[in-house]
């Protein structure tokens, strides 16, 4: 039964290695055969790069583009796509009262400046602290700090798209994307917000971003293979991807009043964090499954990262607790987008429901065929290192669907 307080998805912005825009991503996913990857640039690591983008399509001023590092540009661009898709872009009244929640990490460092410092110290200069001060003071681009700063993705979205109702940035890998949607949906459901922009972005095409995973031995070094088949791969099992995923969420009443198209409705998000041994992880996953009634879903969209232990635990949960529900591991096609993983999975679930088509099998080693159009999809994110989240996305019914 639909209610005016339902939280509905009315706009989707996606930029991934599959393409730009919700429809292009959907079509590429449906036709998925092999991933778009680059195994040369950061060898021995493989990444899913974003396609060439005409940034000025969503970030009109070149001056604004220059103020952002890649991650902020991807996010600001993708946020613009979501606003445009929702028919909100450029609507001053709606943007000025729109709330914003962003899941963000940090931006990219200046590799050349870091290399100068490392080189001088490796060459035998011993006054480490003084060298760092000297080089950073003289070589850093003054505005680079802002282009790196976590909350400035939200800041740029406010500046470029004039979304100014409120602005909150959550941090903490996949967990931040889970919390962002959890908090966003709760605010709408309680009447605290009527319309809200939420999502995240990640740029993996930078050695410092890869370094932060590799310090924990999480990156896969073998030739690419699907996310469910990495248990015995060399290194970790994560293949990262650049990209962004933003959604506009509204109360059903707000969406209907402005005649918006409704992709799908999203239920409460259940999330947790705790010890990552298999037994404790399984207890939490089963509890979250109960809280969201995810067993009732016709399909699962999983944001599994391929991280060895965590994805093994997720596979065990899916095959033992939800044995009859077909699963799609979408990171096979997009790579792992860190903070944006959960928003991405929710977006793809909403697209599937709206198109009335199941996401096709991306890897038949673990994913069962189905020809039925899903009416509800469970979204599961098990963080590569920590944090878990689940939600149910259901087919929109009534006006706007």
């Amino acid at each position: 039964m639909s209610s005016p307080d339902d939280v509905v998805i009315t706009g989707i912005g996606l930029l991934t290695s599959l393409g730009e825009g919700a429809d292009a991503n959907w079509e590429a996913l449906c036709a998925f055969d092999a991933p778009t990857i680059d195994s040369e640039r950061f060898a021995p690591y493989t990444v899913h790069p974003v396609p060439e983008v005409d940034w000025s399509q969503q970030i009109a001023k070149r001056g604004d583009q220059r103020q952002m590092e890649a991650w902020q540009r991807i996010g600001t661009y993708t946020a613009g796509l979501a606003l445009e898709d929702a028919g909100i872009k450029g609507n001053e009244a709606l943007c000025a009262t729109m709330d914003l929640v962003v899941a963000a990490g940090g931006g990219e460092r200046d590799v050349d400046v870091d290399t100068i410092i490392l080189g001088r110290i490796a060459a035998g200069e011993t006054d480490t602290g003084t060298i760092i001060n000297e080089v950073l003071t003289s070589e850093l681009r003054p505005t680079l700090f802002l282009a790196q700063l976590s909350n400035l993705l939200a800041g740029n979205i406010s500046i470029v798209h004039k979304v100014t109702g409120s602005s909150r940035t959550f941090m903490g890998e996949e967990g931040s994307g889970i919390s962002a949607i959890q908090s966003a949906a709760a605010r709408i459901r309680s009447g605290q917000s009527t319309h809200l922009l939420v999502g995240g972005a990640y740029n993996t095409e930078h050695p410092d971003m890869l370094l932060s995973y590799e310090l924990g031995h999480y990156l896969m070094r073998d030739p690419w293979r699907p996310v469910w088949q990495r248990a015995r791969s060399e290194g970790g099992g994560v293949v990262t991807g650049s990209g962004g995923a933003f959604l506009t969420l509204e109360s059903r009443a707000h969406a209907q009043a402005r005649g918006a198209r409704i992709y799908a409705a999203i239920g409460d998000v259940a999330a947790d964090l705790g010890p990552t041994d298999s037994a404790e992880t399984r207890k939490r996953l089963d509890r979250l499954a109960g809280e969201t009634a995810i067993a009732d879903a016709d399909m699962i969209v999983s944001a599994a990262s391929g991280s060895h232990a965590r994805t093994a635990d997720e596979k065990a949960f899916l095959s033992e607790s939800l044995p009859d529900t077909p699963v799609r591991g979408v990171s096979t096609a997009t790579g792992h987008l860190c903070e944006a993983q959960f928003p991405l999975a929710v977006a793809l679930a909403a697209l599937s429901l709206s198109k009335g088509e199941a996401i096709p099998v991306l890897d038949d080693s673990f994913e069962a065929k189905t020809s039925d159009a899903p009416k509800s999809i469970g979204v599961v994110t098990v963080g590569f290192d920590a944090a878990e989240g689940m939600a149910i996305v259901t087919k929109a019914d009534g006006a706007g669907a």
Partner: protein
Amino acid sequence: MTRTLDHAGRPIVAITGAGVVSSLGAGKDENWSKLTDGQSGIHAISRFPTEHLRTKIAGTVDFMTPPEAGSTALTYALAEAAVLEAIGESGLSADDFGGPLFLAAPPVELEWRQRLALDSEGAKAGGGEAGYDRMLLAARTGVHEEFFRSGQFGTVAGRLQRRIGSRGLPITLSTACASGATAIQLGAEAIRRGEAERVVSVGTDGSVTAEALIRFSLLSALSTQNDVPEKASKPFSKDRDGFVMAEGAGAFVMESLESAKARGATILGILEGCGEWADDFHRTRSKPDGSPAIAAVRAALDDAGVATDDIDYINAHGTSTPENDKMESLSLSTVFGDAMASIPISSNKSMIGHTLTAAGAIEAVFSLMTIRTGTLPPTINHLNPDPAIELDVVPNAKREAKVGRVLSNSFGFGGQNTCLVIAAEPA
């Protein structure tokens, strides 16, 4: 029968515990006695060399962790101390807290000592030239659990969750200089929505490093008045020239008034209202007309269900930058009108510096203490008032006053503005 719902029919949010650490010391007692005495925690930096730096002063916290432990370790230690003090005061369990955690924490990065260690290991492992390829080689061939953890944004919250037994997925957030206030706002909202009966909200920042200082210097945000460190932070003065970076943490335990009463807790105060508004003007400058700050103040008053004449004292954002103090004064004059001349407002940052991510939470704790003690902490270093700012800034010496309700302001880089209204427990 005590009223347990507010003017909008939501559960009233009671503050039942508070904790604080700043460069003045650890704990509310030490901080409050020094703060009201007008002592400054700003000093010459000894943690790292300051050659080549334009700013050589800060309000670092040097008594918690050894300098080589790094930012993530200090950021955690500060948060833990403030949270344990707050939970201790609330009388709730400090290892099985049982409610959610909202943490405002600075963004993390690998630190220079870690980069240098990796590069050197990479060289030994046969890597080529100094740089990222060699660091990546070291990363994949060696074991660096501590380095990995210190570079993950969820680390501090995860560790704090394990320490205190908070529940659910903790939220780590950043709204720049408004972060601490946002953490409190998120906690209050969870109680109002009925998602939790108790929450802990904390803002923490232990991120004064050479690189952080250089970054803010390059934006011309910092005071360069290095000669007499304790006099550099001078909010609302004519010769103010920037903020002074500082460290610390502030925490609140909040509960629904109903559940706090039911367990017989002491009610320290009420978190009555939160308001926020984002600025779309510029990455580091606020809109010249102050409209986003004005909207944030008005939103907080509306959320609290109070009028301007219900506010007895304002805890200023008051960073000591030329721009903030002017904009804050303009915004408040717009909202409060002529009455602003008679509402005292002071800046804790004149003594503890700008604790960045922690500031909103620390200043909320001091706002609560202002209500509970009836003492207004001063704005020190106010010897040369800015004639364009006509505010009663409680100059240089504390003042006794009856305070029933405080407005606490936090305005951030990146345009995030958050204001809190904190009140005494209704009689």
